[in-house]
């Protein structure tokens, strides 16, 4: 009798409840780190920041209750709208490019055989660079007059735009810079690609499917869980983008670079919290972001039920 069979038989016997309890208890044991962490570092801070969002608090003095004033201000603050718009536009541009780039690189790497390791190191290099340095690099390499990017474009006769100053090109420039750090997604997708059994590809080839059909009709659905993961994670990351843009456009002594086009939501939040000392308002802003991210992710999850193909295993 197989283990599964034994379990089925056992479930019909009175010992079933005991077995479930033992399962639950064991599960609880393994879950305990997360549960503790959740209570202390998530639930409590969430509650407290919700309370804070109804106060005026600057860390130096006690929080003072001001009711819904922060939220009222949130709705009427033009910069909130601007920064939200910037963030959404950036994310909408970045995520598809990110996924395509990651998939492309992963596909290439999966066919590179033994040489893949060297290339993978090359792609992971940028991830090791501190974001502060990346932001500064952006300013230097994308400079409208002397930057390398425009230099290369000029080889093809394309007059490069002023990436660092022209409001219309700041976000695309930042998106391009963000593609530099695509390695994490590449690794995930590569692992997923390599888990696709050869038989599947061979079967499709035998069926006469060409390269594109094989890739998009067969391989992509097979790795769709990983793709979904990459999409969700990069969306969440995009909505919270901060480090590079802050270092490039809002760092120390950087007033001449302040560009509304690069004012992302978290940057504005950070300014409110740590430059203007409105922690209460910043908490309200943070909650708005939270709700937004939840909404977006839920939409993605709902869509995933239709599009993501799990290997006969658990879905949600």
């Amino acid at each position, binding site marked *: 009798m197989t283990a599964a069979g034994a379990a089925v038989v056992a479930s019909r016997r009175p010992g079933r409840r005991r077995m479930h309890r033992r399962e639950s208890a064991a599960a609880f044991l393994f879950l305990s780190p997360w549960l503790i962490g959740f209570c202390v570092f998530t639930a409590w801070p969430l509650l407290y920041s919700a309370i804070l969002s109804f106060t005026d608090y600057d860390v130096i*003095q006690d929080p003072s209750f001001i009711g819904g004033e922060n939220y009222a201000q949130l709705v009427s603050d*033009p910069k909130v709208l601007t920064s939200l718009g910037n963030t959404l536009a950036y994310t909408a541009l970045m995520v598809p490019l990110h996924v395509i780039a990651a998939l492309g690189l992963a596909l290439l790497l999966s066919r590179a055989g033994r040489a893949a390791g060297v290339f993978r190191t090359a792609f992971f290099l940028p991830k090791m660079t501190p974001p502060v340095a990346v932001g500064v690099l952006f300013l230097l390499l994308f400079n*409208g007059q002397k930057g390398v990017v425009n230099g290369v474009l000029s080889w093809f006769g394309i007059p490069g735009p002023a990436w660092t100053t022209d409001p219309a090109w700041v976000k695309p420039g930042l998106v391009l810079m963000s593609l530099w750090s695509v390695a994490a997604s590449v690794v995930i997708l590569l692992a997923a690609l390599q888990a696709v059994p050869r038989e599947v590809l061979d079967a499709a080839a035998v069926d006469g499917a060409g390269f594109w059909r094989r890739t998009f009709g067969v391989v992509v659905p097979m790795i769709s869980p990983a793709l979904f993961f990459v999409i969700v994670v990069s969306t969440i990351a995009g909505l919270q983008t901060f480090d590079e843009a802050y270092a490039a456009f809002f760092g120390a002594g950087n007033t001449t670079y302040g560009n509304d086009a690069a004012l992302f939501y978290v940057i504005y939040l950070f300014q409110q919290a740590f430059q203007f000392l409105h922690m209460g308002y910043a908490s309200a802003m943070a909650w708005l972001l939270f709700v937004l991210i939840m909404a977006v992710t839920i939409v993605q999850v709902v869509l995933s039920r239709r599009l993501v193909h799990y290997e006969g295993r658990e879905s949600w």
Partner: protein
Amino acid sequence: MRARAGRKAGAAGVLALALMASGCAVGTGGASGEHVDYSHDRALHGELSIMGFSGVDEIATTRMDDAKKGLKGVTVKAAEGDFDLQQFLSAVAAGKPPSLIYVSRNQIGSLAARGAILPLDQCIDGEQIPKGDFIPSALAQVSLDGHVYGIPEFDSVQIVMANRTLLDKSGTKLSDVNGSDWDAMSKAATALSAHSGSGLSVIGVDSKLPEFLPLWAKANGADLISADGRKAQLDGPKVVEALTWAASIYKDQGGFGAVKAFRDSADFFGAGNQFATGTLGAMPMEQWYVNVLNDVSPDAPMAFDTVHARGGGPIAFASGSAWAIPAKSANPEAACRFARIMTSTQAWMDAAQARADARAKDGKPFTGVLTGNRAADEKIKPMTAGAAAPWSSAIAAMYTADQHTFSLPANPADAEFTAAMNDAVNAVLNGQKSPKDALAAAQKQAQQALDKGWAALERKK
């Protein structure tokens, strides 16, 4: 298994509760310091932790040595790096703020309004700090609601720096680019600039927006904020006029984007700087840049003048740093004495002498230093006599400008006011808004922030 799990749950719960309880936030308290004895002859001990002072040159180290000598018995520890507000906040929240901080003067207002720093009246009396020695505009920047909250250090003023060769070539006079005649300056911008295939090859005039908007506004006769720091005045017609003109300087030369990109790629601090390479006609710039130019490109064809008000005499928009004492400072007496010595005439003279000696060794002229302390400035000025032209005219311009400074008075919402102002200017420069609309929006934002800040201050009283 169950029992163990149960106990685990209990332990986890207790731990969580304990952490939650300790995590209850309270403010760490506002200003105190009522029972401090600032007598100047009192012997001091203990430790003095300083945050925000990162000076490494002779001007800084000489005075530091003087201060440490004057504080015998106190261990002085200066943290590295410029003043970082987050770092300061986290130190305050942890109940262990530094004993003394060194901040930009335009940060004093909001720190004072929140009770993060102590009013220094007692300190000034006890240590007998000569308040009258300091430049009035500097004091105005560090005084809120009738109390002084900072001891000013350094004064940074603008002077006009121009490329003599480019001026001569296009027949432009120095007075055309010093701001006394705006039409002439616009014409000079076009005349001095040059374009090549890929964009600008010479910037004619740089009006240095957004930082210098207050300068141009004042040159046009407008103050951006009322003297008591309560009312923002960003949308007045004279301010709109000033912004329109200063922005048009860029437009006339191909747009701000082109100018900025070209400016960014310049080797600002090196031998290939814009004046040395003849790629900039004229601009107002803080006086410390004279030292840089003198260092890296002593042969650049320079001409200097003070910035002039429109149709008027010299003006300069002053800024600088200040020493302030955090509310829960562990050693306010030592902090006060340290600040006194650092800004004392004697220390400044020692520092200037050290700098002059170092420059003499390199065969370079000593170009003076603006200390924010009038008495010290007067003593140091004669030390600069050895400089040759054109640097002597720079020094002359610098000291003249120092006599005609103005500043934005302290207010509880410094950062937001500046941000609103910069946003307006950037919006205009990027072609997103008209000057009138941009400044109107900024006015609304700034006034709102000011109102909130003053209301919070009143609540505290």
